[in-house]
């Protein structure tokens, strides 16, 4: 078993805090919510997080999600107002220097590719958009939509890039997960076979550090682990020509009593954290004798983290075991995981 120790409770947002994202350097994070603001938090000399910047004029409706680029220079925000804003500090202050328009309905999620020149967004309008960024020195950055992907039949909740490759995954109200990659022959973005197993909305997805595994969480109260198999796999799992296939190799059921709204897979420790509608944050650890093709995960922490639904969990990018959570109760909490073994 392990423990989650509360380091700090952060207040400031009015109403539900939907999401939060660590800056890749780990010394800053951003949060957003129904109050239409983005708060950028930094640490004081006394080691306390404070919101030194509050961005208020970017969106006219709820801000559902925020994401930093890997270079750390850009922050993107996705809003119910159908737009995505991209913020940077080129002038010294945070400014919204690009607004990406095109979705017909609420934008639910935004994510940057590892390479830094691709951005993906998804919406209630059932589509996933991929944007290419042209960084021009001494000029304004240009964002061009290079693909509109209409694979899902319902509201798309979450988009997430692979940790190394330009492979994009999306999760939807249609109960499926989809993946997309660029066809090397004609550089068009193509859709791979959908990942089907959840019986209700897939709220969130997260890759592990290798990018060969994906975890998903759902309204159906389960968490699933998916494993990528290539043509050379020893289990004889058939693969499409030159391609790979994703199989659900583990389902964690019976642990969550309500919808699981978010999941994050720690790139340093391999721990899985979930945010649930029963106010709890749970942490799972892969068993030491786990078979990679039929892995087993053990629940190591269950904690009543908030007084209302937990919406977001995100592991610190560099410091092992530091976890950020947000909730409908308006609070953001910073935790430290401690292994009790």
């Amino acid at each position, binding site marked *: 078993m392990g423990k989650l120790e509360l380091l700090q409770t952060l207040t400031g947002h009015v109403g*539900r805090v939907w999401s939060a994202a660590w800056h890749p350097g780990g010394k800053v994070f951003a949060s957003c919510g*129904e109050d239409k603001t983005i708060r950028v938090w930094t640490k004081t000399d006394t080691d306390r997080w404070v919101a030194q910047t509050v961005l208020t004029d970017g969106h006219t*409706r*709820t801000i*559902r999600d925020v994401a930093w680029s890997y270079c750390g220079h850009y922050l993107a925000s996705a809003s*119910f107002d159908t737009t995505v804003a991209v913020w940077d500090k080129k002038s010294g202050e945070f400014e919204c220097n690009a607004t990406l328009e095109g979705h017909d309905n*609420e934008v*639910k999620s935004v994510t940057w590719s590892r390479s830094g020149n691709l951005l993906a967004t998804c919406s*209630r309008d059932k589509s996933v958009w991929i944007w290419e960024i042209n960084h021009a020195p001494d000029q304004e950055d240009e964002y061009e939509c290079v693909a509109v992907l209409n694979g899902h039949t319902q*509201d798309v*909740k979450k988009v997430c890039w692979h940790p190394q490759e330009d492979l994009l995954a999306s999760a939807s*109200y249609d109960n499926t997960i989809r993946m997309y990659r660029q066809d090397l022959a004609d550089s068009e973005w193509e859709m791979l076979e959908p990942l089907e197993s959840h019986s*209700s*909305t897939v709220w969130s997805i997260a890759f592990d550090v290798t990018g060969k595994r994906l975890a998903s969480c759902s*309204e159906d109260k389960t968490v699933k682990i998916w494993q990528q198999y290539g043509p050379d796999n020893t289990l004889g799992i058939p693969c499409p020509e030159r391609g790979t296939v994703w199989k659900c190799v583990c389902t964690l059921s019976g642990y969550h009593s*309500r*919808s699981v709204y978010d999941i994050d897979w720690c790139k340093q420790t391999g721990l899985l954290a979930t945010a649930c*509608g*029963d106010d709890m944050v749970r942490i799972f650890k892969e068993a030491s004798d786990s078979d990679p093709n039929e892995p087993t995960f053990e629940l190591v922490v269950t904690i009543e983290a908030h*007084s*209302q*639904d937990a919406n977001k969990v995100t592991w610190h990018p560099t410091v092992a075991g530091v976890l950020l959570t947000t909730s*409908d*109760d308006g609070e953001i909490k910073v935790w430290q995981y401690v292994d009790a073994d």
Partner: protein
Amino acid sequence: MTELENVNPNVYKKSEDRKVTKADEDEDVVDPFDEREIFDLIRNINDPEHPLTLEELHVLEQSLITVDNEKNIVNILFTPTIPHCSMATLIGLSIRVKLLRALPPRFKVSVEINPGTHASEHAVNKQLTDKERVAAALENTHLMEVINQCIGMPLK
């Protein structure tokens, strides 16, 4: 609204007012939320197309409400007047909004269709359960006007 979907709905009697007991008036007694109290909060919500309350149309019944005050759970089942009622989502949303405003935030409220009483029961339930879509709907000013009209007390 141009055409009524259900022209002649069955109309039922309203229930008697809740009897106030001695304990209710005692400020030192903690009164947990019960089914009757939840029912009283929502029974006077207006139907979107008839000048009648959800109680009078038997869309809401006290027997289809379950409350667990300690576990912070309120579950409501509602019965659309006809199995193809296109107002089902709107009615469910009105019930959710009313309880969102009236109950302390500790409560987890679920509003679902009484099983077997609507053709698109599963789809409507899924929408009403999706808090993200409910939140987006509540930011829609036109929809909120309609919902606020339903939630307002009936004109006497």
